[in-house]
């Protein structure tokens, strides 16, 4: 493989979904705490709409980074990792093996982050608003 993807792109591929999950998790949680742990009527937030919205936004990001990972993975699928050590020295481009490694792992991260976000997005609307568990 000749052209080398930018570090930023690679790490977006690896972490995009995870970061998206973390964001929708924290924000959505804050909404439920604000609405459901407060004395009645202190705030009136459309919690479930926000939950779904956040989750969907996260899902979009997750899909994007999956796309990146797939592309990187295809680019780097067949390389002999050991062979390239020889040209490992200061300033040489990142070894393809590492990009391939990160892309593979990125796929898993994103799939799992996605499935959590999808479960929340599907689950939340079915539940009664602020029903005590």
């Amino acid at each position, binding site marked *: 493989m000749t052209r080398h993807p930018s570090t930023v792109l690679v790490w977006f591929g690896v972490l995009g979904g995870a970061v998206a999950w973390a964001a929708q998790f924290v924000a959505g949680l804050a909404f439920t705490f604000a609405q459901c742990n407060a004395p009645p009527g202190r705030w009136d937030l459309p919690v479930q709409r926000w939950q779904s919205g956040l989750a969907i936004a996260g899902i979009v990001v997750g899909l994007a980074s999956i796309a990146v990972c797939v592309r990187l993975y295809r680019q780097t699928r067949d390389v002999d*990792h050991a062979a390239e050590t020889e040209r490992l020295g200061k300033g040489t481009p990142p070894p393809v093996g590492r990009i391939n490694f990160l892309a593979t*792992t990125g796929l*898993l991260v994103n799939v799992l982050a996605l499935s959590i976000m999808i479960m929340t997005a599907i689950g*939340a609307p079915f539940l009664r608003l602020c029903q005590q568990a």
Partner: protein
Amino acid sequence: MATTVSPRAKQYTDELDRLWTERPGVLGWLTTTDHKRIGIMYFFTTLAFFGAGGVEALLIRSQLIGPNGHVLSPQAYDEVFTMHGITMIFLFVIPMTTGAFGNYLIPLMIGARDMAFPRLNALSFWIFLGSGLFMYAALLQGHAPNAGWFDYVPLASKQFDPGNNIDYYGYGLIFNGISSTIASINFIVTIFKLRAPGMSLNRMPLFCFAFLAVAFALLFALPSLSVAALFLELDRQLGFHFYDAAFGGAPLLWQNLFWIFGHPEVYIIILPAFGIATSIIPAFVHRRMVFFPLVALAEILVAFLGFGVWVHHMFTVGFSTLTTVYFAAASLIIVIPSAIQLFAWIATIVTGTPDFQTPLLFIIGFIVYFIIGGLSGITVAAIPFDQQVHDSYYIIAHFHFVIFGAAVFPILGGMYFWFPKVTGRVYHELTGKVSFWLTFAGTFITFFPMHIVGILGMPRRNYTYPPDMGWTLLNFIESIGSYLLAAGLILIVANLAISYFRGPRTDPPFEGDTLEWATSSPPPPYNFAVIPTVRSPYPMWDKEDRERDNQRLERGEGLLNLEHATPATTVQDAQLDEILSMPSHSPWPPLTALALTGVFAMLVMQHYWIAFGFLVVGGLTLLGWHQNEEQA
């Protein structure tokens, strides 16, 4: 590897010896900055605490061996089960894995000569020792923490627990947290910066991935615990109201803060076990790990997702279902990284040619118990079922299979596995196998009936129970099992202790795949005469590379024998970047730790000005620390 070395090579290694050998004797150990010596000190300290925690466990089981037991008074029972939890988690498993195994092995596995910050490394040990003694001082004085290891308020508030039992808990955990934070920073930087040239991320041993994950999890989880404990002490000692519902506080704030730490904690405990398993399996299965990248990632991912599941410890407190749905989803999905590793291990073992020696047996035991604990974990991620068995013995069964069965078994296996590396001698194989079967049976007999007792409705933390509940027989069986388990553990320690003096001095009876096996056993103070170059995650199996290292030693290449130095490389691809001079022995870390111990002791006694005095002293020791700073 005891290869015969030429006079030329001998001369080089002698130079390195001169540069790296530390003071002998007690003073040498007090002032050491050698990661191996620190690891060994960690090992024996945590082993002692393990003994204490084990005695506490036996006391608990003896109290519950029959209904209306009178071995312990209610007060004593509360203190004992609280100290059992604190000891096993904060004073045994974490320091044993990160402190002992991590410290000793990480630099060896990545081909470095020490940790990135050797003096901080010593400091974290001495602080750990101080915090452990601090908490046990409370037990010796007869007022140990007594509100359970998760110490729920308001039970732990001044109003309902007026003694200073809980203050030892609050300050002790902050104190202990300082040590763990320093250690985790040290691990991350070491793994980022000191990897041998060529060891790019995709070639890092899985053991190191596990410890990297642990270090990050500790780094981000501990602040939450410190804040919780800080609030607790402000409430208790200065009359603040964070947790006091009557003044607008929230008792559940403690639970949230504690479990934001407490659940990542569970993975912090289990991850090193994964790491140890992934280094033992290839050595005995003579085969590379199946699906290396996914296993590596699964280790990191467990630690990451672990931050999103804490409310599954709080499904019964009355949060809204809109809140719990996040945690239910995350708690179920976090199963998958574990499942990936599980089946990667099984696939590796089943497609390889396993040689069932003692260390591998312990890993098999680990796999079996991790499956049991994992499956019972899935059942309590089902909220309604958790709402039935929460705080019952079912939960005790679940987390003992995870924490003892899954986290401690690899530690025991690892003790056997690296014993030849650390001591240069070999343990007694048959005794090892016997000790495994004893421990394995003991664990099952002790903890499995707890599932049933829990289903039969026995709540945890009861100092006694009535005879007519259908719990009696099962509790009796559990107690018998616990004695069996104790026997097994004693046999392990005895085996290693005797082998240390009597064991045959031969090369390890197995072929590890990572770099620690590239050096002699026990390793020289400088770890590696020649800084190795790495081309795969299994450097020991790249024979020609290791052969090249020996040739380079003959030619005197890559020795760094001019000064007390180790190479630093780039973070992602481990390209050689600079040569660092490492600090050697220093008296300051233990002194700093001593000052800190003074600070916390005075805080418990509420002598705030004296505490401040000790803090100033601690600051001054840090100045002394930087007297000679030619080190980078």
